[in-house]
């Protein structure tokens, strides 16, 4: 994550200009973070319209509170925190705090490569979108955004065990969702090789 943070570094001079209320500075910040914030919101919400609204609200909040930002902390970490909170608030508001309540799955490492190795990005995105909203959000926050289980538990108002179980269940569900896709792909490859 440190690499990701360094790529999203904001010059102190730009922050100062934004603090002074310079609209052009806000625009630069917006352009720099539009994609990361929108992607985060989209991955958590799986809905383009909601993701757009969350991005808008998070950006506005950040701009309104720019004078409270402490420059020694990574700007992206601060913005990401606000965007994550906004996305979670949206899930609560839309009553989409649904989770995977299936039986606990004992994950066993397959001898074969996991299905996401063989699946293309689109298939993985689709499978991710099929997960229950909160399960997907927890999975994304843990695996991609680098939040720890206690941090996630705090953010979603649940226990650490809940966070851990959602990561395990979400991973298992992704495996299930992707298995038919990748089996289909491998069958096609074998068929074409036989020809």
């Amino acid at each position: 994550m440190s690499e990701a943070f360094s790529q999203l570094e904001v010059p102190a001079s730009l922050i100062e200009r934004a603090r002074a209320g310079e609209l052009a500075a806000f625009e630069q910040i917006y352009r720099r973070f539009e994609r990361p914030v929108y992607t985060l919101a989209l991955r958590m919400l799986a809905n383009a319209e909601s993701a757009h609204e969350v991005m808008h609200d998070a950006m506005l909040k950040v701009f309104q509170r720019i004078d409270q930002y402490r420059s020694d902390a990574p700007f992206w970490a601060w913005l990401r925190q606000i965007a994550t909170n906004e996305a979670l608030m949206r899930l609560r508001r839309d009553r989409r705090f649904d989770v995977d309540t299936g039986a606990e799955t004992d994950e066993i490492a397959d001898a074969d490569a996991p299905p996401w190795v063989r699946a293309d990005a689109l298939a993985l995105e689709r499978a991710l979108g099929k997960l229950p909203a909160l399960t997907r959000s927890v999975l994304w926050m843990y695996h991609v955004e680098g939040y720890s289980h206690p941090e996630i538990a705090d953010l979603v108002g649940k226990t650490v065990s809940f966070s851990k179980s959602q990561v395990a269940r979400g991973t298992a569900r992704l495996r299930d969702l992707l298995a038919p896709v990748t089996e289909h792909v491998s069958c096609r490859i074998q068929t074409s090789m036989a020809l």
Partner: protein
Amino acid sequence: MPNPDIDGAVMPLPEALRALPQVAPAQSAWPQLAAQLAAQSGARDRVSPRRRYFIPAAIAAGILLALIASPLLLQLRGPQPSALSPQPATIPQPVASTNTNATNTTNATNPQTAADSGVQLAALQQRSQELEHWLRETSRAAAPLSGQDLAAATEIEDMIGMVDMQLGAQQSNGGLPLWRHRVALLEDLTVLRYSSYSVAASGVDAKALMPTNWAN
């Protein structure tokens, strides 16, 4: 840390998820944001250039209510030492109405109860005003909040905004529970800000600026 047994040895799930391409929104949010920022900036300049902490219109209405209620308040209270007991981060209880509670504040048929409600309301509004004044005065000198505190402060400010919306929609002065909630939230915000103000070591005594009836 991700578990390699769960995530697969060849390509862990985190890596596969991170490898997903970033997505751009179909429409930029910037034009709307720019308009909102420009409007807010203009409004701030018109109202007061010193105003950095938001003060909702509901506060002005509250102060007006307090002023209206104050003559009645003085008649009923007599020589009370203080309207508020010095309890940190708690909802103040009016000295003049020791036997009242939130449930009887809406009973407008009893003049004594109505007067007690007025006393409580005025006290809460005054306290709210004092806390906001303190927050405004110290925000310039306070050290920036840490990420976690800032997130908490943001959440509290949002909740205050929600309370203000409800207060703004309130037609009568029956918003005593809302004002209690508002004061409690402002006290929470004050606690957060007080620590950062102390850290800033600006040379100004935070306690001197703090509302006199708020001990920390």
